[in-house]
């Protein structure tokens, strides 16, 4: 008997919880709910709060995400208007605009909704890209780019269908990635490499050119300096000779002696280095050897 109040209290609490679970439901700000009665659509609840319902199987509540959901399509190959092949990934932001339609079309399964959206977006993407040139998507001149326009065109193509048929509002759509198929990527790599090779050759040649110019300029300067020095030295030497010539007057006192002395000087100077002389015994002072030679001959024959 002592346990009765406790059992009663616990029982009441459990019953209240159970009744609340059966007869009420809560819709969060992030959710939108659809209530069906015996499988037939009754109402959609788009504002958050506490709500009442009949227990299952009379009524059933389906809750869906009310916020913008993101979805990314596969990296897909397509062709531009000028027949260039590219790879493209498109992403989209979508939210449920008509919960009833969303429930009917996809059983409330977001994955099924995204599969349908993917097909819709793929179709729009390929058709819009096919209308544009490659240069509209990639260009060194920003004024030529139509990147934003391409995205807007895609969004316009899918928005109405998604709204009317799927109960989905596509709020944004953008190109997330652009690429090239592997075979073309290899070609681009090859070209980029060749571009660099060209630069390598250019820089090597430029280096050679600059070096040659610098060397030539240096040689020119050397020649200039040496030529100037040569000319200047000749002038100086001339000055020296001019100065020296002033002293020549003294030789006028005895011209014959002067010439004799100059000859002697010249002779001495010319014999300074590596000279070989063949002299006969008549030359002075070697003529003095003649007597000695005769005496030696006589003494040898006397013996």
């Amino acid at each position, binding site marked *: 008997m002592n346990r009765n109040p406790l059992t009663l209290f616990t029982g009441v609490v459990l019953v209240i919880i159970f009744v609340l*679970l059966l007869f009420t439901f809560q819709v969060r700000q992030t959710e939108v709910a659809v209530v069906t009665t015996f499988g037939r659509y009754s109402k959609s609840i788009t504002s958050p709060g506490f709500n009442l319902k009949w227990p299952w199987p009379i009524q059933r509540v389906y809750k869906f995400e009310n916020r913008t959901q993101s979805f990314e399509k596969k990296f897909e190959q397509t062709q531009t208007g000028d027949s260039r092949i590219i790879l493209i990934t498109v992403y989209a932001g979508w939210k449920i605009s008509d919960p009833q339609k969303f429930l009917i079309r996809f059983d409330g399964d977001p994955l099924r909704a995204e599969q349908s959206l993917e097909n819709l977006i793929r179709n729009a993407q390929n058709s819009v890209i096919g209308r544009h040139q490659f240069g509209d998507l990639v260009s060194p001149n920003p004024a030529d780019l139509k990147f934003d326009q391409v995205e807007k065109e895609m969004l316009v193509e899918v928005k109405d269908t998604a709204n009317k048929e799927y109960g989905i509002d596509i709020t944004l759509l953008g190109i997330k990635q*652009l690429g*090239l198929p592997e075979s073309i990527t290899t070609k681009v790599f090859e070209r980029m490499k060749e571009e660099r090779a060209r630069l*390598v050759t250019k820089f090597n040649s430029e280096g050679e050119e600059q070096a040659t110019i610098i060397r030539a300029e240096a040689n020119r*300067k050397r020649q200039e300096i040496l030529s100037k020095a040569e000319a200047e030295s000749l002038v100086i030497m001339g000055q*020296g000779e001019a100065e020296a010539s002033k002293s020549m007057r003294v030789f006028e*006192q005895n011209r014959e002696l002067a010439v*004799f002395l100059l000859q*002697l000087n010249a*002779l001495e100077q010319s014999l300074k280095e590596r000279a070989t002389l063949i002299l006969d015994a008549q030359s002075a002072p070697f003529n003095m050897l003649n007597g000695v030679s005769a005496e030696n001959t006589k003494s040898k024959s006397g013996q």
Partner: protein
Amino acid sequence: MISDRNIQKNGLVNLAALVGVGVGAGLTARYLDSAAGYLSMLFIGFGFLVGAVSYFQMRLEARERAEKMEYDELLRAKSASALFDSPDAESFPAQRARQQFERVFVPLFTAVLVILQGVVVYWQWTALAKANPLKIERATVGMALFGLFALVLFLLGKYAAGIARIEKQRLLRPGAGYMLLGAVLCGVTIAGLAAGLMGYPKVDLIAARVMVVLLGLTVIETLVTLIFEGYRPRMKGQVVRLLYESRLIGLLGAPESLITTAAHALDYQFGFKVSETWFYRFLERAFAWIVLVQLGILWISTMVVFIEPHEQAVIERLGSPKDKVLEPGLHVKLPWPVDVVYRFQTRNLQQFLVGVVPDENLEKEKVLLWTKAHYKEEINFLVASRQREAITNQTPSDQAVPVNLLTASIPVQYTIQNVLDWAYKHENAAEMLKHLATREVVNYLVSVDIDEIMAAGRDAAAKELQKRIQQTADANQLGVRIVFVGLQDIHPPVGTSDNAVAEAYEQVNGALQQREGRILSAQKEAEEIVPRARAAAADRLSRAESYKLMKISDGLAAQGRFPNQVLAYEASPEVYKQRTYLDTLARALQKPRKYLLATTNTSHVINFNLEDQVRFDLLSDVSVPDEDKDKKKK
């Protein structure tokens, strides 16, 4: 006294309940992605295996009892018959079957059970690391279902445990133990789900880990029992303990037995009946109330919330968010589930990378080279090429697209500025921000030149990208502030083995260095040539000056000497001339080689070899260059 048939029926009902609840718990756990739910299902599954073996053993024992009764009847009817004088084993097939079962099958089954439970422990422990997040939105349904499972298991388990205790039916005990434990674990799963609803979804995972540990302990206990069974002394008439029955499971399945055990332990320790004191009796009486009050306090504690310094929180009343954002500190709210708090780390700097898929192992590398990929996956961004005009003249089939490729790892750092926008505008705001940022990067790069962005345009590009990402984030109401966008890791792609693009870029740098080297080498030579020329010029001038001075000096010397020479000459012209001549000749002929022809016979022909002989004394002035020095110069 309940008949054997009724007890067997009870065993069968328990088995059916374990199967039904096990399947139900498994499906519900799958519906909820509840890790604790899966573990509960596994425990119930093991309960089914143990219950099935017990049930089989129960039938064997019942057959043995029937056989014994038949034998006793026959003994009474034909007491003198020789047929029954010496009963052998062949006469009791049921008994023999039961003995064989206990001797062979039970240890074998217990060993298999240990292995199976061990495998499950290992599998679940590793699987829990990658467990899917709990589907909180389905928690209420899950709580109701698990409540139902717990009720079924509790009622049937309690009944079976009661019969086992009263009727001494030990074979009902293992299954009953697992059923009661299953009820407790379903209760724990409900608690985990409730915690998830209160904003603590990890409680489910923690509960699952605790269950894995519990299963591990059960494995150890059963293994120890199995080993010790081999060394146990056998006594005739002793009831054999069930090897596959876990005491731990029995204890956890009936917590009140834990209290009884604790009371016995206290009595033994203190030497008097602690369990008979008024305090202990009060505790025993009021235990349920105390637990209830504790739960009440726990519920009331949900009215208080502490927000950490790096956090902000949003409070929802019955699903509808209040405008006021909770700042760090203490806050009071209505209890769960009326008010629910959602926390966001708004003040933490958050970051993601655009253009790459990070790899933990590669990130540890300390040197980042263009020629080696340093991420798991690197995206090749298309960038514009300045050579477009030339290339677009090609036919479309050439496919030489007018672009370059660029690899970039662009960190984008941000903080949450408007927590309401962050929480309520997008299902996954972080992912949406990444989409938008990547789009802006792609959009920006398609209009810039690779060389420009990798050099002078890098800083401007980073600033422009930060501005654009902020604008698009604002336009899409993400509620973030972009703090930093970095273009530090932007470079040409690694390329392939045949077309190593990054390496080609490095070669360009090498060529630039080589060009500079050549220019510097030429400048070095120029630096040498010009001063040398200046030195040679100076030498030449100096020699000219010397010559000039020499000429002047010679002139002056002659001017001073010649008058005196004239005087000497005039004194004796011939002698002076001869003397001067001979003096000069003597000086001049000191060094030259001389050949003197002393003969007077002119008819002889004399040949002179005047060819220059090698003069080794000349070589003394010649130095041989040092080979080592030459090599160094080269």
